[in-house]
């Protein structure tokens, strides 16, 4: 561990209110990891949102694969480069290889699954005619999913995202900002870029941030069902601030309390808001 602070992580993923009514499973997924082995701090969270549209009928699996692949890849990456003091090399790896590795590993996972479990007549029966040739040309479409993830090591924070979803940071004064990722101009409304697109690596956005004197006090990752539940953007950002304010006075106890309440809050939020599945991952830094 760094010796000055410890990162804690937790999260929750709940089925959307509309999905409950329509008997559709939760098509989001979440994974997190907090490891302090061999004095090497490594924390990560990944959330994914399967497209949900009936055309992408295996997107719940696609989302599950997305967070699993991200977790494995980022953990390996963190273990290899997590102590690097010269971030130039890390930056080169991120820029030149990470996106390719992510997409390749997700593709491989999907291909293995598809080979083991080919599309059934029942799955294909509900598809509209114009989509069938597209699926035949690219069967990975059925698994379409987004991904938002963050890795923290002893020397850097790495943000990595493909498609919609939100990553926000909160500083020690409680000020909330969006993570410094470039905006994907292709995201609009419910249209998103996706892991299932050919050359999906082109849509992966990354940002490597040295872990300097004043790192964020908290990072929140969420699928778009959360932000879409608020009337205004400010209301969504205020959620991160409120969560920070609830944890901050109590530290670890606050984290335990939040961990308990988060699932029921998210369930209430989807019911009163977007109706979509919601996944939220929190990374919180406690100064020791």
């Amino acid at each position, binding site marked *: 561990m760094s010796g000055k602070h410890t990162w804690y992580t937790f999260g929750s993923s709940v089925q*959307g*209110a*509309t999905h409950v*009514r*329509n008997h559709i499973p939760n098509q989001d997924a979440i994974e997190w990891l907090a490891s302090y082995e061999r004095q090497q701090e490594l924390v990560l969270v990944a959330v994914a*949102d399967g*497209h*949900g*549209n*009936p*055309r*992408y009928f295996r997107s719940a699996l696609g989302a599950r694969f997305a967070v699993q692949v991200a977790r494995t890849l980022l953990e390996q990456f963190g273990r290899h480069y997590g102590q690097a003091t010269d971030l130039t090399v890390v930056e080169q790896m991120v820029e030149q290889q990470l996106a390719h590795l992510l997409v390749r590993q997700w593709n491989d996972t999907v291909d293995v699954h598809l080979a083991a479990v080919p599309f059934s007549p029942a799955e294909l029966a509900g598809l*509209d005619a*114009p989509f069938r*040739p*597209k699926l035949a*040309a*690219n069967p990975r*479409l059925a698994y*379409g999913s*987004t991904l938002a993830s963050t890795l923290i090591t002893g020397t850097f924070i790495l943000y990595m995202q493909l498609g*919609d979803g939100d990553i926000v940071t909160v500083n020690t004064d409680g000020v909330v900002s969006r993570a410094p990722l470039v905006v994907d101009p*292709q*995201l*609009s*409304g*419910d*249209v*998103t*870029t*996706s892991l299932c*697109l*050919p*050359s999906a690596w082109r849509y992966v956005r990354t940002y490597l941030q040295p872990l300097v004197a004043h790192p964020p006090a908290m990072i929140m990752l969420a699928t778009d*069902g959360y*932000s*879409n*539940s*608020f*009337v*205004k953007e*400010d*209301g*969504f950002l*205020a*959620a*991160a601030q409120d*969560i920070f304010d*609830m944890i901050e006075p109590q530290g670890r106890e606050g984290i335990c309390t939040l961990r308990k*309440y988060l699932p029921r*809050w998210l369930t*209430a*939020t*989807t*019911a*009163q*808001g*977007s*109706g*979509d599945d919601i996944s939220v991952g929190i990374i919180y830094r406690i100064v020791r």
Partner: protein
Amino acid sequence: MNKLPGGALASRPLHFFWIVDCSGSMAGKKMQELNFAIKESLPEMRKVAEENPNAQVFVRAVTFSSGAQWHVARATPVAEFRWEELKAGGETSMGKALKMVADQLSPEALPGRGLPPVLVLISDGRPTDDFNSGLRALMEQPWGKRAARIAIAIGDDADVDILQKFIGHPEMTPLVAHNAPDLVKYIKWASTAVLKSASSPTSQMETNQAGAGAPVGITVPLPAAPEPAQDVEDVW
């Protein structure tokens, strides 16, 4: 711990627009059936909205003849929406109507968290004004591009090519109503099945025939359109 984190919550707004041809050629039976069909579809439309409390459905209507005007200008909750009968007369200023709708789809007018709007264009003729500039204005708006654009042609004189341009997507073609039962069926389908599909939050991207491509085009998974009626004598 009873208060939820964050600001005010709300279900997502869904804006539905009727864009209706009121030119002289619509006079008589066509207009009568159109008024009947929209009125008839309202209870079912309300039911669809009630079944999904996570979408707030607002309805508006614009008509075009010699010029274009709002028939229902305010974004009206579907539960309060009433249909006043339209009368036909004049030319076919379709481009002007599309411009008026485009103005209501700007990011300032519709915040980004909404569900994709549904635009239903009904016409029996060909535009007499600058259709292309109206369509351009519509497609310049992010919500115009992302909207579910449905077109219903009434009779053989309708300009199907123009309506296809409005749809702007090869996967969907204009529904051609050759008789009153078809018109009723198509209007009901657009205002219920399409509305239902549009009001469920899903993400997707649009792909080309090779399964590749960028996220463009319609975003609402459109349900299969109804088949035209068989052996109906009263043909327009």
